[in-house]
């Protein structure tokens, strides 16, 4: 009986590992092969080569240039969107959690309401607004749309975080003559750091995964992120699968490493964000 339970548990662990890792392994394997080897059905790369990666990272020509530009774009767009979202959400969440002001309830409900409708509800109007303001094919346009999409969730998670923190320290500091902003910077933020990190990570990963919004908001390679460029390559049969998979591995490297390194923060943030 005990023995059986042990075997069942190990089988369970194996299923989790196989399920999560096999598709990633397969792409990694293909990206390390030559075109000829990839056509044969191998389960391991027989003659592993980094040539696909060196082509993408240092090669000249259209495709490598496009991939490098798209990598730069996705880093800029996700980085800016994350910074702006976290700063604005922190300020607003602190006000919601600790201050009385007119319109507080209404605005808070508006934040919750925007989380209730699916993101693509506003796809077409956002495109038309950005197009009216000449913000199509600009970093600003993409970052504004990302921030508007992620700000409600970030504010909600941070509000809950602040609301669950004891107020006694803050009150003492206020009585001692510290200003609200000093209290926020010196007392609240250091204590709330785990929550802020969670929100930053989740926002960054959401931004990195975006596809339909940047597909619509960037029509040329000047601002197209890696996701859009890779999807476009997939349709072109001239791009060998080995190169395509190398590009895919480059696109998942950053989020995969973040997820593995900071999984605790991500799990906490996800759970805090899902329970409304």
């Amino acid at each position, binding site marked *: 009986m005990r023995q059986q339970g042990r075997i069942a548990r190990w089988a*369970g*662990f194996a299923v*989790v*590992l196989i*399920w*999560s*890792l*096999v*598709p990633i392994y*397969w*792409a990694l394997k293909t990206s390390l092969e030559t075109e000829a080897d990839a*056509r044969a059905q191998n389960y391991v790369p027989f003659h592993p080569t980094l040539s696909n990666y060196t082509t993408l990272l240092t090669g000249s020509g259209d495709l490598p240039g496009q991939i490098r530009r798209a990598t730069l774009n996705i880093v800029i767009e996700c980085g800016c969107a994350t910074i702006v979202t976290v700063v*604005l959400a922190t*300020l*607003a969440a602190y*006000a*919601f*959690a*600790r201050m009385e*002001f007119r319109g*507080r*309830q209404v*605005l808070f409900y*508006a*934040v*919750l309401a*925007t989380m209730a*409708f*699916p993101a*693509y*509800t*506003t*796809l*077409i*109007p*956002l*495109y038309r607004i950005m197009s009216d303001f000449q913000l199509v094919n600009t970093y600003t346009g993409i970052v504004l*749309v990302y*921030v*508007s999409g992620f*700000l409600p969730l970030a504010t909600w998670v941070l509000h809950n975080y602040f609301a669950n923190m004891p107020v006694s320290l*803050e*009150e003492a500091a*206020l009585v001692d003559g510290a200003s609200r*902003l000093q209290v926020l910077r010196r007392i609240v933020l250091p204590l709330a750091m785990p929550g802020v990190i969670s929100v930053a990570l989740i926002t960054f990963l959401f931004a990195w995964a975006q*596809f*339909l919004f940047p597909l619509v908001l960037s029509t040329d390679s000047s601002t197209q992120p890696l996701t859009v460029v*890779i*999807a476009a390559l*997939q349709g072109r049969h001239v791009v060998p*699968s080995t190169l*395509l*998979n190398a590009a*895919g591995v480059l696109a998942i490297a950053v989020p*995969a490493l*973040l*997820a*593995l390194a900071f*999984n605790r923060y991500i799990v906490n943030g996800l*759970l805090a964000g899902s329970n409304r």
Partner: protein
Amino acid sequence: MKAAPAAGSPEGSRGHAAKSLPYLLVTPLAVFIIGLALVPAAFTIIESFYRANPLDPPTRFDGLGNFRRLFANNAVLTSMGNTAVYVAVGVVLSTVLGIFFAVVLRRPFRGRGILIAVLILPWALPGVVEGILWTGIYDPSSGLLNGVLSSLHLASHGSVLLGDNRWLTIILIELVQVWQITPLSALLVLAAMQLMPQELFQAAAIDGCGAWQSFWRITLPLARPGIAVAVVQALIATLNVFDQPYVLNGAATTGSSVTEQTYFISFQNLDFGGGYALSLLITLITMVVSLIVVRAVYRRVDY
């Protein structure tokens, strides 16, 4: 759901600057919410009753014209059927797998942290790139799936998996999305399981309740709040599925989803009115179905 009452606000006497501070703090948020969420949402609702097409100006009131055209459009109707299958397959598979993974990871053991990190990996990756990874697996000649199936003599070598049969195509594409959304389902169910008091299971074991029985009688009912949230997140994701079919199926219309149709109608045919109407429909369906699920599955659990 309510904002907690603000605590510790002795700044009444601190003058004008302190009084205007909260407004200063929330103004950027308010601008984003109103300007780039509420106003666009209102646009979607209003303009779905207008003929809005840059190729056929001017924008003019058209009553239910957009909706009538949508329901007369075979591609849209087919995509609705497809999406229903995406939702059914995706919600069932991600929930069942999520519960299974949660059970596997439930008790503490050495290396659990690593296993959870590996579990959430597919959630963290972009859907389009996951589509690329799985294209390799589904490839007729060099793919892993065909390799395994043909070595088990279940399929002939080189048989086409994607784009041939409508239902098989949809199921295979949805499997890629299930790969992405299952981690969150597992975490939500796992979190609900962590709240269950261990004494309950000990008492059940003393009463002669086997592992299987205590799973069905205790674990599953008590995990209902977590399962409800998992089902809702899976519903929202699958009803709006776009990245996976777009990448895995390309221009082929076999298995296209409603969100793909919204994209084609608005950004290829430039029929914005039709696009507005279709997004409004998806939004309404998403909200209504989520509400029904929450009502049906969610039960408050008190220990």
